[in-house]
């Protein structure tokens, strides 16, 4: 529980005692509140990818289906096919950029794989 009773007030939050769950925080800081375009434009495709990963973490397809929630089927971003296409697109752009820079494409691939592992690792936590 993250609140405690005090003598003078109804409820006094005991901030800092129990750090809020990361999932609860991400759910709020990424998706809620005021959404404004700042001067620094974050690459939308990358943001979308991040959001997809988080959404997939936030609701398991199986649980959602069991509960009759099927929002991801109406969301083209989240239908697996679209997701794979976008992912492939990103990989290709990544490699192209690496080639244009004269860098080793293998390094970019490794980086992608490392990220994939990171996500997979987090997901099984």
């Amino acid at each position, binding site marked *: 529980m993250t609140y405690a009773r005090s003598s003078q007030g109804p409820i006094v939050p005991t901030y800092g005692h129990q750090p*809020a769950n990361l999932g609860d925080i991400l759910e709020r*800081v990424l998706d809620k*509140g005021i959404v404004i*375009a700042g001067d620094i434009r974050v690459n939308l495709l*990358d943001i979308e*990818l991040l959001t997809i990963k988080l959404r997939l973490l936030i609701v398991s397809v199986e*649980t959602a289906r069991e*509960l009759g*929630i099927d929002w991801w089927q109406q969301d083209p971003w989240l239908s697996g096919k679209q997701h794979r296409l976008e992912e492939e697109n990103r990989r290709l752009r990544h490699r192209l950029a690496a080639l244009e820079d004269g860098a080793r494409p293998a390094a970019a691939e490794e980086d992608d794989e490392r990220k994939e592992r990171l996500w997979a690792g987090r997901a099984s936590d």
Partner: protein
Amino acid sequence: MTDSGTYLYAIAQETGEALPDGLTGVAGTPVRTIAHAGLAGYVGTVPLAEFGEDALARNLEDLAWLEATARAHHQVVDVVARLAPTAPVRLVTVYAGDGQVRELLERRLAEFSATLDSVAGRQEWGVKVYVDPQTVARPAAGPGTAADRSGAAYLRRRRAGMRDRDDALRRATAHGDRVDAALSAVAVESRRHRAQDPRLSGRDEWMVLNGAYLVDAERGDEFATAVAALRGPEVGIELTGPWAPYSFTVLESEGVPP
């Protein structure tokens, strides 16, 4: 060309109350305020080497960076929300300088003021309801049927099994609806968020409600009591908060400014 930007955490009513000494936000940078026309933007100066467009595209895919940044952002929002009515701004909203933030406050003054008025003196509470599939499941078909190996008996058992499962789901979701209705009666406003994955919630049960409730500060006690009364052998309830009113200050972008 500068190498730093202005990171915006939240917009609040200006109360003149001082921030706690040494409050830092993302990337360990100090938090300060930009006051304009009764509003206060809570900002920090961040290096573009970390918060520029390319850097962000990279960093947002790094879960360790994302976690540290999300927690730091949330902490600032949390502190500000204790001082004044507050509308959190989405993670990694970065402006070229303070002037642009002042301009934003001016341009959307009426909208921001109305939103802040609607959350003044209120807090957000998070409520998750869990139901264990085992406890809502009805016992399987009675004794003796297992011995009956006819096709008709098989189909009967299978139909009964599906009916039991549908029943269990209906009962589980009904628990969520019942809790939501009871708590909405105490709250000023409520929102239902998507259920979280068990890997994120860390629990195996079905999450049948992931709700947010905007509650008058003086009714927080009553709200917690209501939550406690709704707990039962089939229903686990997790209460979090109070949160800054993240779920009740949702304003979409006005699009690209001229």
